[in-house]
């Protein structure tokens, strides 16, 4: 598991040095999300935490997503 995380980190840095423009940032963030997911599942045992906690976690993610989406709507349509 740790090895997977380290390899993902190395991949992200390697992708950076490929200099492929905006795609590189998207890949890096995707890798970051995979790493976060792995940490959540395997280190924090989210799947043991019960339905309530899992649901609230998803709601908090959705909330942050909504805040970001609406802010972008506002700022870039001015």
């Amino acid at each position, binding site marked *: *598991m*740790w090895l997977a*995380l*380290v390899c993902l*980190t*190395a991949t*992200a*840095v390697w*992708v*950076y040095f490929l*200099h*492929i*423009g*905006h*795609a*590189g*940032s998207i890949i*890096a*963030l995707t*890798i*970051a999300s995979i*790493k*976060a997911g792995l*940490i*959540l599942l*395997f*280190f*924090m045992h989210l799947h043991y*935490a019960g339905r309530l*906690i899992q649901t*609230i*976690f998803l709601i*908090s*993610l959705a*909330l*942050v997503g909504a*805040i*970001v989406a609406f*802010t*972008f709507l506002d*700022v*870039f349509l001015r």
Partner: protein
Amino acid sequence: MWLFLFTEILLFGGMFLLYAVDRAKHAAEFHAAAEGLNRFVGAANTIILLTSSLTMALSIAELRSGRRERSLMFQSLTILFGCIFLGVKYFEWTAKIGHGIFPDSPELMKLPKGQILFYGLYFVMTGLHGVHVLAGIVVLVFMLISTINRRITHHDYVRIENSGLYWHLVDTIWVYLFPLFYLIT
């Protein structure tokens, strides 16, 4: 503890939002400013925190299996890695400050606006994260002492499990900070 972690997600989420808007509006300058950061130092810090999460998880696993001494060893390693992370951060910051780049410095104000925003966000977000790491280290030291005093045992380990959750969150936040500040293409 999960509830507290959700408030932390909102706290850092707000700052990530600020980062996202500023970067969308000053994309090229963010890229230029990020050149000033050392990717390998950032990657090293990422590996350090990931390893500390591993040792944290292992310390709880060992405690639950009744192997107290090994748990103590892993807890100490986690604290050590946390301190190493802060040490590396310290050197990164002093290097930047030595070059005259810190919030509100004359050097920084000469740079284009996007770069000023980048470094402002960099200091605040990594600073806030560093404070969280420090708080986590303090908590882990308390857990270590409690394990030594046998107030945390393989029957009653809720406190150290919660401390572990907090520590993993701090690691996860850094997992996102790293690509956003160091890997801008």
